[in-house]
């Protein structure tokens, strides 16, 4: 175990996997000489050379498409799109080719590829650079969607992503990059997909989050305990596809209340899917309607006060929980 930031844990995962499997190579925007926009790939060009760490032009569709072709040719590419905001430009390749080729070809072709991207708002980057699209990617059958909330998970999940034979959309919330944590140094440390993590046990309410929103959930749980003597269980989904709903349902059956927290827009968001499944599977156990705490349905403004008003906060989570205890 060593203490490190999430960005360092991600780099460790890339290094270890590249050492393990020589079919793995990295390509993306500014991942080489620049060291990655969030410094995740720093030093890897020097270590592995330009044949395996490839700086690409700014051509999202082209490089994701090339990644798909390389995967079809027997390699295991990691494509870094800098941020999730730019992945819109590669959406056709991701949705129509990476997600569908295995099925459409009746199992003849598969696309083992990891696409990494940074996501989330809260940095005053304004509307075009602050998206949270984890739920959108989880919408498409054929993709796997991973969104770690801490350093150890980031390492174990990214290493696991390279052991998968399908395309994995690996989404890193920018607020998580600098968070430090204890990270195992065992090269076989993997975290299985579809296994949610109970970060904090509780008895009165289940708070579900993923990626960045896990932190609002845990801070809210601490406040609820200190100020209201409400015991909240916090679940980090870790992966949205596959989705570990069993853990959520078991928790809700224990606590009888559920609050979903996400950075994405509320309308049509992944939280709606979660709420729906809780309703379908645990309706009789619920003492209150499932609550959703999400981003207000507006493009994120640049102004700090406006942006913070739009994004979900721990106070919003606390309010949602308290609302469930009012008669």
């Amino acid at each position, binding site marked *: 175990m060593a203490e490190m930031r999430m960005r360092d844990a991600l780099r460790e995962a890339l290094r270890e996997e590249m050492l393990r499997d020589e079919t793995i190579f990295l390509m993306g925007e500014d991942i080489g000489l620049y060291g990655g926009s969030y410094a995740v790939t720093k030093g890897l060009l020097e270590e592995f050379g330009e044949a395996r760490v490839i700086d690409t032009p700014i051509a999202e569709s082209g*490089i994701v498409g090339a990644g798909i072709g390389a995967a079809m040719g027997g390699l295991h590419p990691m494509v870094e799109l800098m941020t999730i905001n730019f992945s819109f430009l590669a959406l056709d390749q991701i949705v129509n080719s990476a997600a569908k080729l295995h099925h459409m070809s009746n199992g003849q072709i598969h696309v083992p590829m990891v696409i990494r991207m940074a996501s989330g708002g809260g940095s005053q980057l304004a509307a075009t650079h602050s998206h949270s699209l984890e739920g959108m990617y989880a919408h498409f059958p054929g993709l796997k969607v991973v969104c770690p909330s801490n350093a150890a998970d980031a390492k174990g999940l990214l290493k696991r992503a390279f052991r998968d034979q399908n395309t994995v959309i690996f989404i890193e919330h920018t607020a998580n990059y600098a968070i430090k944590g204890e990270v195992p140094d065992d090269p076989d440390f993997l975290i299985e997909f579809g296994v949610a993590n109970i970060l904090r046990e509780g008895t009165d309410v289940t708070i579900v989050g993923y990626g960045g929103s896990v932190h609002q959930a845990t801070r809210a749980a601490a406040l609820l305990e200190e100020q209201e003597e409400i015991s909240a269980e916090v679940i980090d989904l870790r992966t949205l596809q596959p989705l570990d709903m069993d853990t959520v349902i078991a928790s809700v059956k224990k606590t009888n209340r559920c609050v979903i927290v996400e950075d994405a827009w509320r309308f049509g968001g992944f939280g709606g899917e979660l709420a729906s499944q809780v309703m379908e599977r645990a309706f009789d156990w619920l003492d209150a309607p499932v609550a959703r705490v999400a981003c207000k349905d507006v493009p994120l403004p640049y102004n700090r006060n406006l942006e913070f008003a739009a994004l979900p906060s721990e106070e919003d989570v606390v309010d949602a929980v308290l609302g469930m205890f009012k008669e």
Partner: protein
Amino acid sequence: MTTETTSPAGTSLGAEQLGKFLYEMMLIRHFEEKCGELYTKGKIRGFLHLYTGQEACAVGSMAALEERDKVVTHYRDHGHALARGLDPNRVMAELFGKATGVSGGRGGSMHLYDVSKGFLGGYAIVAAHLPLAVGLGMASNMKSEGYVTLCVFGDGSVGEGEFHEALNLSVLWNTPTIFFCENNLYGMGVPFHASLSTEIPKLAAAYNMPAVSVDGMDVIAVHEATNKAVDHARSGKGPYFIEAMTYRYRGHSMSDPELYRLKDEVEEHRQRDAIERLKTQMMEAGQLDEARYQEFAERVDQVVDESVEFAERSPQPGIETLYDHLYKEPSDG
């Protein structure tokens, strides 16, 4: 002393090879006409884009490839599949949506795959497969496998960003990619001259790759151009671009009322017909007689009829297979 026949001017291809070209073009023509017929009978559904008129492009280009090479193409893909040697029975079965189809009935007309033949698919989003061809080239280079990728697309692709991204990346990364543009003068119903402000080979040349334009209704010219391209790509010199000037006789798809062109124009292009042209050339060179031509026609009839029978009697995919191949599992091998 044996009697030698003279091949059509300028080609070193023998009677056997040319006969093969003629047969394959006739097969594709008849297969496509049959598909049109079956569509009106409701046996084939969905979108159906027929390849009649463009046969020389598929036949001439595929013949330049080796077995290890890869092919990615657009959604008007039956001709390429047949020219690449995919089983006509299984291609027809796919159009019928049957379990025995090359894509198990999941792909349909626009998404034919046969990995065992290096045929990595028909792609139905215009220009989407061009970057894939570059990636396959990266894999060929990195793994020193020596294969080239033939990437076939239409003139409608050149307005897409992916066309430009792929051409640029292929030169930057020196991939063994043959970009083969079938210019049939229409992107669906929009005339080519209304789609592009320049000429296609100039675009490719601007990205610093060799680019030629050939008569896509002349199978020999197509073949020779592709041979050169394959030699270039396989020898490590990077990508190569071919524009083949061709014409589709039928509408864009079966639902096209063809309001954008006159019947006279179609007739005019039929005068350039690749099959008639090669047949005449071979007859004049003494490489073909009427009897042999009839033999080809009968064989083609037989193969197409058999493919329809095979498709008819093949089973539907089971409903229980709906979720098959959604994700590749370690147990899939």
